């Protein structure tokens, strides 16, 4: 890859790429704890719709956030594969449910572009920037804003 030749002086961020709906997203790898297949998901009655449930991962309780619901990308078809990205926030564990996890790519920070003004507001709210890759766009997710469920209902 071209970026491999970049000088070491330039800041590079590695991203875990995931697919949610038809979109590709990137999560900074330093925020990603692990990637796992969510099993034995327990629904939480009365919880916000984005909370898919809770599950136990090696003895820790993980709150699973359905990214399709969070980004308003439509419900997942029944039986479709699900993967989870493990995130730590303030001592608590979260799992972001995505359709698929792709490769890890390293991208120079300088190539990250500001999100376009006409980006879907739901995406815009949680996007940190955009990379133009070959053939497709990758939206960089701001993990903190993704997990800030309070800003869901704003400007509907």
């Amino acid at each position, binding site marked *: 890859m071209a970026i491999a030749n970049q000088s070491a002086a330039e800041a590079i961020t590695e991203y875990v790429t995931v697919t949610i709906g038809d979109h590709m997203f990137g999560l900074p790898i330093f925020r990603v704890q692990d990637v796992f297949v969510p099993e*034995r998901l327990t*629904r939480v*009655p009365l919880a916000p719709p984005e*909370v898919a449930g*809770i599950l136990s991962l090696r*003895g820790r*309780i993980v709150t699973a956030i359905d990214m399709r619901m969070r980004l308003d990308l439509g419900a997942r078809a029944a039986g479709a594969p699900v993967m989870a990205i493990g995130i730590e926030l303030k001592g608590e564990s979260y799992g972001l449910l995505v359709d698929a996890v792709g490769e890890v790519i390293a991208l120079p920070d300088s190539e990250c572009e500001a999100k376009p003004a006409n980006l879907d507001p739901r995406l815009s709210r949680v996007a940190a920037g955009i990379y133009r890759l070959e053939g497709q766009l990758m939206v960089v997710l701001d993990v903190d804003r993704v997990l800030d469920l309070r800003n869901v209902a704003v400007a509907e």
Partner: protein
Amino acid sequence: MDDLLKEFLIETNESLDVVDVELVRFEQDPNNAEILRNVFRLVHTIKGTCGFLGLPRLEKLAHAAETLMSRFRDGTPVAGEAVTLVLSTIDRIKEILGELETLQREPEGADTDLIKPLERMAQQAGAKTNVPPAAALERLLRPVEVSLDELERIFRETPAPSPVAPSVKVEKLEAPAAVQDDEAKVAGQSIRVSVDTLEMLMTMVSELVLTRNQLLDIVRRHDDSEFKVPLQRLSNVTAELQDGVMRTRMQPIGSAWQKLPRIVRDLSAELGKDIELELHGADSELDRQVLERIKDPLAHMVRNSADHGLESRAERIAAGKPEKGIIRLSAYHEGGQIVIGMADDGRGLDIKRIKATALANGLATEAELEKMSDAQVQKFIFAPGFTTAQSVTSVSGRGVGLDVVRNNIDQIGGNIDVHSVQGKGLSFTIKIPLTLAIIAALIVEAGGERLAIPQLSVVELVRVHGKSAHRIERIKDAAVLRLRDKLLPLVQLSSLLKLDGDQTIPDRGFIVVTHAGAQTFGVVVDSVFHTEEIVVKPMASKLRGIAMFSGNTILGDGSVIMILDPNGVSQAIGGSVAGAVAAAQSDTRSGDDTAVEGDVSLLIFRAGSPQPKAVPLSLVTRLEEIDCATIEFSNGSHMMQYRGGLMPLVCVNDAVKIKREGAQPLLVFSDGSRSMGLVVDEIVDIVEDKLDIEIGSHHAGVLGSAVVRGQATEIIDVGHFLPLAYADWFRGRDVRATHQERTLLLVDDSAFFRNMLSPVLKAAGYGVTAVSSGREALAILQKGRRFDALVTDIEMPDMDGFALAEAVRSEQRFAEIPIIGLSSSSTPESIERGRQVGLHDYVAKFDRQSLIAALKEQTADVIQAA
């Protein structure tokens, strides 16, 4: 932070807490040289360390306090104000330490406001004492100097006899060494471990427990596994480890009490009351997490007691009580709980004032209060913002208080009870679980989800099916469970939690009778599994807003389930179901009663003869089978302890003998706080039939006979037995009257009296229509039904008897109806008022003889007039 400084802060704070307690003890027992030495040593150590660490401000303060204390040691009498001064100095030191912790350096400032009086007092004290002139210095000692007395003391106490006259330098080294020696002994037995480490250990053990459960689950499915034996061992070790780690988190409750002696001392000075604080069972241990949560509530309650519980000195003397008031705290273990008692021997709760305040705050209506037992009224003190203190003092009476105390206790799954005897004192009993980390929980399923309900809140499990004695009933839209004497609001868990599945409450199923706060309710679930020790994990912050859950846990099979919070459920019910039930409850009552011609539920039993006897079921509060061993004979009558009081037992007739062994069936009748047990031979059945008393009776205690289910049955007159149990329950004996059928309308908001009076009046020959309110009575009259007389209770909510009489009298067509007022109080004013509004007669509520006499007279009048 500098390690040395950190250590200093921890140690000094601990020492200061001890000083607090010891000083208060010392003030009470000024001749105890042991205590003084202890205090002196601690302050001295603080001073020394401050000097060493270069904290001049603290050092000066400690020095001044030490100087004053050294005077006490020299024999100066201890004055209360001196102790107060030293205590304020300790407070100041604590303040400075607090700032030191945040600022990392000693805050600026001089403490001349304290040091001056300390020095002055020390000087005065010094002047009074006969200190040998040689030893006395002309000036006060400077911080690092040691008085000659002290040198001599150290010299005497130094264990190693030194042949050489010791120099000051040696003394200084040896004195702390001796002190350290003492401390080393204690230190050898215990070490300081940070709370974080313990918390982490607890988490790890919890994980271990879960993993163990998981393994056990797997092995259970494989019959002959070679893992079985080692796993069993692992299981045992885990259990022991869990136990051990739990114990490291345990702290004696005394550590929560540590501040109390000081609080009480200060209060007693401030309020001018003599107060003694007794502490019992200070070494009962409980989880530090729980301890933290009850510390403040306890201090608050002690403050309350000191401020408005205990009377002033003069009041106490006038009441013939010892001058010194006592506040007693006690703690002991019982089951998995710790029971904490707090009692004072003060004035107790003033029921009248609570009622007045409850009324003023709109917590209850006058009529509701009228019906409440004292115990129920006392519970109002836990209502938010409730205070009966006439004046707001700096100590308490601001109306923030017991509701907060109760909330705190509710939150940790405990409960609080109050017991008060006016003039004698007040006591609180608090029961709380020993630990919150691992609890027993009932695993249930609702709407396809498993949930845990904390075992401590579960009262009982009831299985309801078509034939069971407990039925699910519907009152309007609300479902209720009739369980023994109570109607319990029901809530279906799956609909409460908005889960899938049938949202209507089925006629059969499992009901978890749950208790939370002051409410008992039934939670309808699809199935009940088992009880399991679960490790409570806090809810994720994103989900903490859901009041229905208190946390979650991982089960043995690795799945996560939610832990139901009974308090949350109770609150959710509070607004909806309970209200509907309360409304419906009075609805059905009145509904039943208006239909006098309709069927009545009768309890059939046998007593003394094979012929069945019956009593209207609505009069019976409870059916009990008690162990004969619990029956006591005292003061010429049989009685037993029942629900915290003594309940007299009365036999239906002489032929009934109280059994000597086995189970004795009883019918319990209650009115307010009083209960009576009617002894019968056998409880036969409950039937629905017309209650038509056909033949009157000459026997005391029998209203007459009726045909029930095709069999002649004696109808028992409960009113006859009540005065046998309590002479003052009613007055008068059974009255028979044979009249031609006349009709009367009975108005009483109390179901008990409606049910009580209806059969009595029926037996006296009247056709009775009973309603529960003035408005209903008016409605019936306006519909055109004719009655020969109107008998109405005076004290009723909404429209009272006077208002009803006025309304009736205002219509010409009712002008002739005689109205008889029933009242529990008959003051001349109320009788006069009754006359004005047109009551023909005014009868004391329980005086049935007069009522019937009055009725006879009034209805005879009607006949004559007609």
